[in-house]
């Protein structure tokens, strides 16, 4: 009897070991499946973005031909002024068309292109200076939350500037410096944000939500032993995050 019990116990042990292994394999597979799904979605999104870009390039080429013909006819008529006005209209129109930012880091591409196009649609002048960094140490979720929050804050504040009839401008920089992967987002402000709200707290019912996401930005920077800062300089609100490489 006793021998039998020991045998059973052994068997049970083996089985639970097997079960543990299978379970952990199952978890891993589940995780990679989720990752694959996410990356498939990502690729689909990107190819859609690229398709749209091709489409707009095609129509642009067509438009350009028309524009040149119109300009030529003005010049043939000797109406230089009309040609000049027409050309500056085209330039303004061209300034509103933007190329797809391609950095080699698909997550960075996706967030930048989506957010910057959102900003431009809202009438914000956006200047971006991007080094193709991998942000290797960061989990995708954290990187995405960090960059999106920083951009969202600047977009939200800039749209408020627009609403009050002022020119809105954003500058986005991603670059490597002094052992850090850095993200710097600046937005033009007509009055100080920090004077009214030095802690950048979100206040319920307050339409000025510059502080939304600030605690999250701080948490993520801290998680990776990085630094972040929010300050004002030369008429800009500046938020920056530095993640050690």
């Amino acid at each position: 009897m006793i021998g039998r019990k020991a045998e059973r116990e052994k068997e049970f042990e083996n089985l639970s070991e097997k079960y543990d292994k299978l379970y952990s394999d199952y978890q891993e597979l589940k995780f990679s499946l989720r990752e694959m799904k996410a990356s498939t979605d990502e690729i689909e999104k990107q190819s859609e973005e690229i398709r749209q870009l091709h489409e707009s390039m095609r129509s642009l080429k067509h438009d350009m031909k028309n524009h040149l013909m119109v300009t030529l006819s003005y010049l043939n008529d000797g109406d230089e002024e009309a040609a000049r006005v027409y050309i500056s209209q085209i330039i303004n129109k061209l300034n509103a068309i933007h190329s797809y930012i391609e950095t080699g880091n698909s997550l960075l591409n996706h967030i930048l292109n989506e957010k910057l196009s959102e900003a431009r649609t809202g009438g914000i002048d956006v200047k971006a200076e991007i080094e193709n960094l991998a942000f290797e140490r960061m989990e995708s979720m954290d990187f995405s939350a960090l960059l999106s929050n920083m951009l969202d804050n600047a977009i939200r504040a800039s749209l408020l500037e627009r609403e009050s009839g002022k020119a809105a401008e954003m500058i986005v920089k991603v670059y490597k410096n002094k052992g850090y992967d850095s993200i710097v987002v600046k937005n033009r402000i007509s009055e100080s944000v920090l004077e009214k709200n030095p802690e950048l707290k979100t206040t319920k019912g307050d339409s000025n939500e510059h502080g939304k996401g600030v605690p999250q930005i701080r948490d993520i920077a801290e998680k990776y032993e990085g630094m972040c800062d929010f300050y004002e300089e030369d008429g800009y609100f500046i938020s920056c995050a530095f993640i050690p490489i």
Partner: protein
Amino acid sequence: MIRIAICDDEKRILDDMSKAVRGILEEVDVAVYLDGQKLIRDIENSPFDIIMLDIDMPEISGFSVAESIQKMAVKPLIIFVTSHDELVYDSLMLHPFGFVRKSHVDAELKKVLKDAEEEVASREKHFFFHTASGDVKLKLEDILYFESEGNYIKVITAEEEYRFRETMQTLEMSLSSDGFVRIHKGFLLNQGSVKMIKTDAVILYNDVQLPFGRSYQEDARKKLMRGMIR
């Protein structure tokens, strides 16, 4: 006199740009190039302080020109000029000093050139002091840091050490606008000599590590960090 080279394959833009540059900087010597290859050949013999590069050029792109320049001993400040709103560059290339959009030249050129002028001038700034063995004149950019030692201050450069009588406080006051940051009761650091900022210390380009003083840490880290943003 600041020496600037402008490189663009469009003659008209070259003319407009050099006119704009002369309107912004008073003492300036402008050389223009239609071709990047010629610029690269010329740099060897006539060094420039600032180089403005168009990115989209037919023979050799502005990026390639910048990469070639980066391999040389002289290190001019590079400003890219583009017709795009985005500048996307490879990690292998040095972070450029600035970038100007052709559609926003009026607003952006002035700021970046003024900043560049200041940067070039700071490279020429000197620090004078009197030691037991005579007067010393050092380039500010060659000083790694100052260290207090009783009533004396030690000046540390990559090659040498000097000692002179002064207080840290006076030194900090006179040099804070030149990029020197007090990181510790006993250390006044040249921001330009920092290779890496850690939580509790900084590492310099010569791999010396200096600690943050507890009461200086937060402020100093903030200053160093903001100094990294242009």
